[in-house]
C-alpha cells in the first residue's frame, strides 16, 4: 500500500462523512433542482465546512453546472471536487525553513488538540529525513506535560531541553536555542502549553516566546504551527484568527483525522484566513503524520 493508499485508508471516516453524503444526495436524485442544492448545502454544513463556505461552494457549483450544461446529478461530483480544491489549493504548502540551521518551529493551540503528541511525531518525521532535532519542553503549566514530551522524545530518539514544572517557558526556549546553536542542531520544535485563544494574558506569553526566539536566532520562529483537532467545529476559525494575530501562524496541523467524519473546518479556515494545512495526524503511532497534500486529500475523500 503506497502513501496514497494509506491516506485513503486512514481517511475512511472522513470519506464516509463527506463524500458519501454528497454521493448519496446526488444518486437519490434524477434531476438537478433547488432541493438537491439545498441538500448538498446541508451535507457540507454537517461536515463542519461552515455556513458561509458551504453556501459559496454550492453557489459556484450551481453556476458552473449551468455554464457547462450539466444535466445529470452525477455530473456535479467533479464540480464539487474542483470547488473544494479551488479553496484548499492544489499544492502542498511548503515548510518555510531557513537556509542555515537551526530552524525553529513553534507549536501552539488550545488545550487537548494534541500538541505534545504532534511534536513527538514531527520529531520522528524530521529524524527520518536525517535531521538533528531538539525539542523544547516549554509547556511548563500542565501537570506532567514535560514527562509526556520526554516519553515522545525518547521514542523519536531526539534530545529534550527542559526545566522544572512551573518555570518560565521563555527561559526554556532560550536554553533550547542556546543548546541548538552549540550543538548545531538542524531543527528545534517548541512545545507550548495549551491555551484558549481568548485568554489575552496567555496570548501575550506566546508573543514573548516569539520575541525570545527572534532575539536568539534571526528570523525565528520560522514556522508557527497551530494544532487543530479535526473534530473541532466553527470555533477553529476563531482559534486560527486569534492565534494568528498573536503569533503569526504560518500553517495548521490537523490532528485526529482518523476518527472524525468531518475535518471540513479546514476549508473554512483556508477560505476565511488563507492559512494552509501543512500536516495531518492520522493515528496514535509515531509515524502517523504526513504532509498535507490537498489534491491527494480531496481525491482520497471523493474517489
Amino acid at each position, binding site marked *: 500500500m503506497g502513501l496514497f493508499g494509506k491516506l485513503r485508508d486512514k481517511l475512511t*471516516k472522513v470519506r464516509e462523512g463527506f463524500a458519501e453524503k454528497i454521493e448519496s444526495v446526488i444518486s437519490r436524485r434524477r434531476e438537478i433542482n433547488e432541493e438537491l442544492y439545498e441538500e448538498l448545502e446541508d451535507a457540507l454544513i454537517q461536515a463542519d465546512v461552515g455556513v458561509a463556505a458551504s453556501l459559496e461552494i454550492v453557489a459556484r457549483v450551481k453556476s458552473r453546472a449551468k455554464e457547462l450544461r450539466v444535466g445529470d446529478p452525477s455530473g456535479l461530483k467533479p464540480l464539487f471536487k474542483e470547488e473544494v480544491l479551488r479553496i484548499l489549493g492544489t499544492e502542498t504548502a511548503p515548510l518555510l525553513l531557513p537556509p542555515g540551521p537551526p530552524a525553529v518551529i513553534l507549536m501552539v493551540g488550545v488545550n*487537548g488538540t494534541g500538541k505534545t503528541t504532534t511534536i513527538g511525531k514531527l520529531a520522528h518525521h524530521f529524524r527520518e529525513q536525517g535531521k538533528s532535532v531538539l525539542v523544547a519542553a516549554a509547556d511548563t503549566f500542565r501537570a*506532567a506535560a514535560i514527562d509526556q514530551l520526554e516519553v515522545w522524545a525518547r521514542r523519536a530518539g531526539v534530545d529534550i531541553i527542559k526545566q522544572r514544572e512551573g518555570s518560565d517557558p521563555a527561559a526554556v526556549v532560550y536554553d533550547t536555542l542556546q543548546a541548538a546553536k552549540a550543538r548545531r542542531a538542524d531543527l528545534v520544535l517548541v512545545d507550548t502549553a495549551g491555551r484558549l485563544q481568548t485568554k489575552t494574558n496567555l496570548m501575550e506569553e506566546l508573543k514573548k516566546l516569539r520575541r525570545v526566539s527572534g532575539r536568539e536566532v534571526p528570523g525565528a520562529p520560522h514556522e508557527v504551527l497551530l494544532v487543530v483537532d479535526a473534530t473541532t467545529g466553527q470555533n477553529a476559525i476563531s482559534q486560527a484568527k486569534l492565534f494568528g494575530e498573536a503569533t503569526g501562524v504560518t500553517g495548521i496541523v490537523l490532528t485526529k483525522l482518523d476518527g472524525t467524519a468531518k475535518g471540513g473546518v479546514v476549508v473554512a479556515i483556508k477560505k476565511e484566513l488563507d492559512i494552509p494545512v501543512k500536516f495531518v495526524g492520522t493515528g496514535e503511532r509515531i509515524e502517523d503524520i504526513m504532509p498535507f497534500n490537498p489534491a491527494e486529500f480531496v481525491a482520497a475523500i471523493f474517489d
Partner: protein
Amino acid sequence: MFSSLAEKLQETFKRLKSKGKLTEQDVTAALREVRVALLEADVNFKVVKDFIARIRERAVGQEILANLNPAHQVIKIVRDELALLMGGENARLNVSSKPPTVIMLVGLQGSGKTTTAAKLGLLLKKQGRRPLLVAADVYRPAAVKQLQVLGEQIRVPVFSGETDPVAISVAAAEEAARKGYDSVIIDTAGRLHINEELMQELEGIKAAVKPHEILLVADSMTGQDAVTVAEGFHARLGLDGAVLTKLDGDTRGGAALSIRAVTGCPIKFAGVGEKLDMLEPFHPDRMADRILGMGDVLTLIEKAQSTIDAQQAAEMQKRLKSADFNLEDFLLQLRQFKKMGPLENILSMIPGFSGMKKLREELQFDDRDLLWTEAIINSMTPQERRHPEIIDGSRRRRIARGSGSTVQDVNRLLKQFEQTKKMIRQITSIEKGLKKGVRPGRFPFIC
C-alpha cells in the same frame, strides 16, 4: 461564553422588534437567521431542524400574531425551547445509597478527562465527601503522573496500578470500600469512539465495577461530530450525563445543545477555567438566558454568596440595584469581584452584557487594571467618590498625579463608571420588567 450566538440572535430580534406587527413572513425570515446562527454555533444539523420546526409551530400560532408584543413572544419561545433543549433543570450526580459511589469518566482524547477528574474530586471534597481518584489511563504517556500531580494539588489520593485498567478499577473500588472513601472517580483512556478495543475495555470496566454514574467528557468546541461521539459512547456504555469542558473560551457551545437533545443525557457540569476549582453545575435554564444575553444573575449571586458572607452579598445586591450608585460602591464592588474570579467570567453573567459588543470592548480590562483602578479611586477625596460629577480638569490632574497614572486613565475610569451605572440601571429595569411580565422597550439588547 456563547457570546457570538447571543449577539447574532439579538441582532435578529432587534430587527424583529422594530416592527409593530409581525407577519408570518417576518417570523420565517427571523427563524432563518436563527437557523444560521445556530449552525454557526455548531449546533447539530438535525437538532437545528427540529428546533426551528418546533419554534415555528409555536410562533406562527394564532395567539402570537395577534399579540401586542409579538417579538417578545418569539424571544420567550426561543428561550424556553433553548432551555428545554439543554434539559430544563440542573441534573445532579447519582449517589449510591451504599458507598462508595463510583463515577466513570469517558471521552475522546484531549477532551479534558484527567483535568475534569481532578476538578470533580475537588468539588466533591468541598461538599464534604471523601473522593478517591483512579488512574485507569495506562496508555497516554504520563497520564498517570498527570493525575498524581493534580491529586497532590487538591490533596485527594490517587489510586494507580499496573497495566490492566479493569483490574485497577476493581482494586480501587475495593480499596475505597476498605478505607472509607465514599466517591470513586475513574479516569479512563481517551480514544476515538470508533476504536473497538477501547470500547471493549470500557465495557469491561463497567461490568466489573458497576459505576453509578458514567459521564461523557466532551469538548465544547466540538463541531457537528459531537453528536456522533456522544451517540457512539451512549450506545455502548449507557451514559448518565455529560461534562462540557473548555466553556470559558469563545466557543458558541452548540455541542451543549446537541448532546442533550440527541442522547437525552443531561449535561451535569461545565468546565469554565483552567484552575481546578473551575467546574460548575450546569444549569440549562440559566445557560439559555446567557445565550440570549439575558444574563445570569442567579449564578452571579450564588458566586457572590460562596465567596462573600451572606450579609455582604445582600448589601451588594442592594447596591447593585440602587440608583445612587457611586464610586465608593464601585471600588467596593471591584474588590469583591476580585475575590470571585476572573472578571470576564463574572461580567458575562450580567444581563445584556454579552450582547453589548461595543461596551464589552470598551470595558475590556484585565485583572491587573483593577490595581490601577483602585489606586485612582484611592486618590480621590470622599466627596469626589460620592459625587463624581464634580471631578473637573484640575481635579483630574491631581488624581492622576496622586495615583501615578495619567489624566487619560482617570478619564477612562470615569467613563467606565458611567457605563457600569447605565448597565445597572438596565438590570434594575429588567428585573422590574420580569416581575410585571415582559414589557416592551426594556430588554437590555435594545439599548
